[in-house]
Structures are given as C-alpha cells and as structure tokens.
C-alpha cells in the first residue's frame, strides 16, 4: 500500500487541478480574512456579510473538496493507471491509498484558512466572523497569540481540516461508483449542507443526538479556539474512524466491481 500511496501523492503533486485548487483556497482565505477585518472595522456594511460568506471556508472547501476527492479517485480509472495498481496491490490497498490521498487533499485546501487566521491574529487587528465557522472564530479570537497559542491554532486548523475531510468522506465510495469528478463534486457540495440539516434534525431526540455525536456532523465535534486537547483528540478519532468507515464502504462496493 505504501507504493500506491507514494504514487498517488506523486500524481497529486503534479496535478494541475490540485495546484489550482490550493491557489484558489489561498486567495479565498486571504480575501475572507480581509473582508472579516473590513466588517469589524466598519469598512463593510454588516448587510454585506452574506456576500462575504461566498469565500468562506465552508463554501470553498465544500466546493473544492469533493472535486479533489473525485479527481484523486476517478482520474486513475481514466488514465488506466488503476489497472497497474490493481495488478500490483489488489483492491483493498488501492481503496485505502485513494481514501488517504483524497482526505489529505481536503486537508490541504483547508489549511490556507488556518494560515490566514494565524496571519490575521499576528497583525493584532480585529475581525468579525461572517459565519461562525472554526477558522472564522480562530481569526476573531481576542486572546493574545504566544508560542503556545500558535501551536494550538495550528493544531485546531489541522483537526478542522481533518473534520472537513471526514464530512466529505461520503464522496469516497461515491467516486468509486460514479467515476465522474464533476458529478462527485456536485453531489458532495449538496451533501455537505444537507448532512448538517439532517444531523440537526436527528439530534432533536436523545438517541439521535447520541448517534450523531459519533459522526463528524455533530456540532459537538466542531473544534473551537478554546477546545481542549482532549476535544481535539476526540474529533480526530471520530474523523479518522468515519473516513475509515467510508473507505470500507468503498471497498465493499469496489471489491467485485468490473473495472473498465
């Protein structure tokens, strides 16, 4: 599986889509942080906040994440390199490698928001969150940033990226079935919003809330600027297990599927 992972990461490193996505995420994160500063400083009307949300982490990652998952998984079927991978390693390692690569891609496009929060905080300026997402709250946090604070901010950013990857992990089995990146992107984008609505509905009951708590969609799993190490580790564990579960589902679907 290490060979497959190395190959998949090499492909990602040379992927135009990956490069463009990271650049888009960087530009969006910088713009988002600047607009939040303008909101706080009164340079931007509060009514404009809905427009600012267009470059928020939740929107950009929900858009780019499924696309990158679709590309990481479906592209080898187009290039037929999956034939070589299946001959060399079999279906289990191929699914595992693709699931890991796809998740890493989502984390990578979320990190610019963490970096923007770090830079924003370092300037000492005030920020007004346009949406109460982790990255926006990290940026707007008023606690003075010291070395420990930087480490905590980086840790919260990475865990948030992992949480996004887990929320979008349903795209992994979907990509193995559909093998069309654009369709995966559209479905994943819609799913990322529908899932939150579904979970909030299910969470109205106690058993539903308990079950939802075991998924990355629970509000309790969202890392906050003051999240403890224990909270972050719990979120990490829930995310990793959910990604693994989606990988296992993908393997079940792909195990006996014919490959074109």
């Amino acid at each position, binding site marked *: 599986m290490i060979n497959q992972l*190395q*190959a998949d990461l090499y492909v990602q490193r040379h992927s135009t889509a990956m490069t463009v996505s990271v650049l888009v995420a960087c530009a969006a994160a910088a713009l988002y942080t600047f607009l939040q500063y303008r909101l706080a400083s009164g340079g931007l009307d509060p009514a404009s906040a809905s427009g600012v949300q267009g470059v928020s982490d939740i929107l950009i990652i929900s858009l780019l994440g499924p696309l990158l998952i679709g590309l990481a998984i479906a592209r080898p079927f187009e290039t037929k*390199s999956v*034939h*070589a991978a*299946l001959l*060399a390693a*079999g279906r289990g390692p191929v699914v595992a490698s693709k699931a890991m690569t796809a998740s890493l891609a989502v984390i990578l496009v979320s990190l610019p928001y963490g970096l923007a929060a770090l830079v924003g905080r370092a300037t000492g300026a005030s920020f007004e969150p346009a949406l109460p997402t982790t990255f926006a709250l990290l940026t707007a946090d008023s606690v003075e940033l010291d070395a420990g604070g930087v480490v905590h901010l980086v840790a919260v950013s990475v865990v948030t990226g992992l949480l996004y990857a887990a929320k979008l992990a349903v795209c992994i089995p979907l990509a193995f079935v559909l093998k069309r990146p654009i369709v995966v992107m559209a479905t994943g984008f819609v799913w990322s919003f529908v899932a939150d609505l579904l979970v909030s509905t299910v969470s109205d009951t106690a058993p539903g809330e308990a079950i939802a708590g075991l998924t990355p969609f629970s509000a309790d799993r969202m890392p906050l600027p003051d999240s403890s190490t224990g909270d972050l580790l719990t979120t990490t564990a829930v995310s990793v297990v959910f990604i693994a579960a989606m990988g296992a589902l993908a393997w079940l679907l792909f195990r006996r599927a014919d490959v074109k």
Partner: protein
Amino acid sequence: MTEEVLVTRGLTKRYGEQRAVDDVSIRMERGRVYGLIGSNGAGKTTLMRMISGLAIPTAGTISLFGSDAERPRQQDLARIGTLIETPTPYGAMTARQNMHVHRLIRGVPDPNVETELLELVGLADTGRKRVSNFSLGMRQRLGIALALISAPELLVLDEPVNGLDPAGVVEVRRLIRDLAIERGITVLLSSHNLPELYQTATDYIIVDRGAVRRTLTLAELDAQTQRFLRIEAPDTERLTTVLEQGLGTSDFTVMPDRSVRLTSHLDDAESVLRTLVRQDVWPTAFSPEGESLESFFLTVTGAGRS
C-alpha cells in the same frame, strides 16, 4: 518441458442474459505470442479483463503461472503487464513522469528502467513534452512501455497497433516478437484483423460471440491459408516426376487422396498445364485453391456464410 503461463477452464462472463464470454478454455505457454482474433464485440477485451483480474468471471477458473488456485492470486497478477483499450496516461505529465508513477505503483526500485523502456519504445527524446501533446501512436508506445515496467512474464495487449502508422505497426510487431524471444515473455495480443496479427503471433485464438471457435499455431494457419494449384491425374507418380523434371520444382505435396498441391507457379498455371500435357500427363483436376487469411477468418467465425 513447456511451462504453462495461463490456463482457463470454462471461463464465462454474463451481463444479464448476454454472454460476453462463453465457456472459454485456453492454455498458453511461456515465450509464445498468442493472437486473440475476433470481430468487434466478440469478447476479446472482456476475456483480457478477466485474465488481468479487472473483471470477475461469472463462471469458470483462471490459473496463472501453474498455480492451483481457481482465481488469480495477487502475487500471480503482479507478474502481468497490461495495456487494455486505448492508453490515456496523465496528460499534464511527461512520458518520464508517467513512467515514474507506474514504477512507484509497481514498486520497481531501479529508476534506470524508466530510461531503458522509453528508449525501447522510441520515446527517450520527448523531454518535457506533455503527454497531452503526444500523437496516438506515441501514446500507444508509451502504454506498452508502462505495461513493461514491472518486467512482466505475461503481457496482455489489447489492440496495441491501433492508431499506429505503418512504420509504427512494424516497430511494435518487432518489439513484441523480441520480447517473446529474448525475454521469454508470453504475450496475449488482440486484434479484429487476422492479417494484422499474421506472423507476429506464434499461436492464434479465434473468438466469435464470446466463444473460442478455433485455436491453431502459425504453421497450422499457414497450412490452412496457403494458396496452391490442386492437380489430379490418373498416374500420380508420373505427375510428380514431370513436376520435378519438367518444371524443376519440389514445392508440392501429395495428399492422402492422391491429389497434388503445387505451391509454386501459382501465377503461371498455363505453363504448368502445357508442361504436363506435353509430357503426356492429362490432369483430371486442375484448379487454384486455398484460402486467404481474411476468408479463413470469415469461414471460422461463420461471418462469411451470410
């Protein structure tokens, strides 16, 4: 003793009611080149996919490299190289980068293999040119190089000369023959065109509507498709003497029915007849016979009957 590389027994693939591959039992030996010939939709690619572990058979067994297992084991599949359908490598990458991806996938430690194989298929000088700018023939050759990267013992090539110019076709034929002879690789290559495979393959598997209609060696194919003059005369011994002495040829065979198959002088039948008559040998039958490769294929598959 010959070494079996692939044995299939009753291999079947059904899609709903349709049988894409129907009860196929074939046997392939080391170092030979097998031509899988059939019309479009005859089941060639499906058969190749099943052999390569890309499609799951509905019934039947596949034994690779002498294994007793009924399904290909992972360690056996790792000894196969494939080029199935048109190769579409990563377009944004160069040929060498594509080679690198496949070398990583296959876990081949020696990086020199990338250069060696690119030289072998004539793509060593493509430099930083992206594969998206390659011609179809260049992609086809890159696909063959990618299939060879793990030094496979069984090479499965689906229509490998598609899109190649005549010079490219000759080059790929030579490459395939060399791989079999020099490296002992067993090659299974498909085509819908028997003349295209003629003399590249050492053995032929003719399929139609999912089933194997005929398997034969090159020598058997030659015998089946040789053009000749069929001559009968009351005195066969006298006939052969005249052929030897009057025409100066020994390119003939006396068949069990006492007819003679003359494989030379096909374009000079009139002079053959004059010589026989001049020597007082009066043929009771004298006709050009034998099948072309195309007509033989059509006869075997039954397509010629319509």
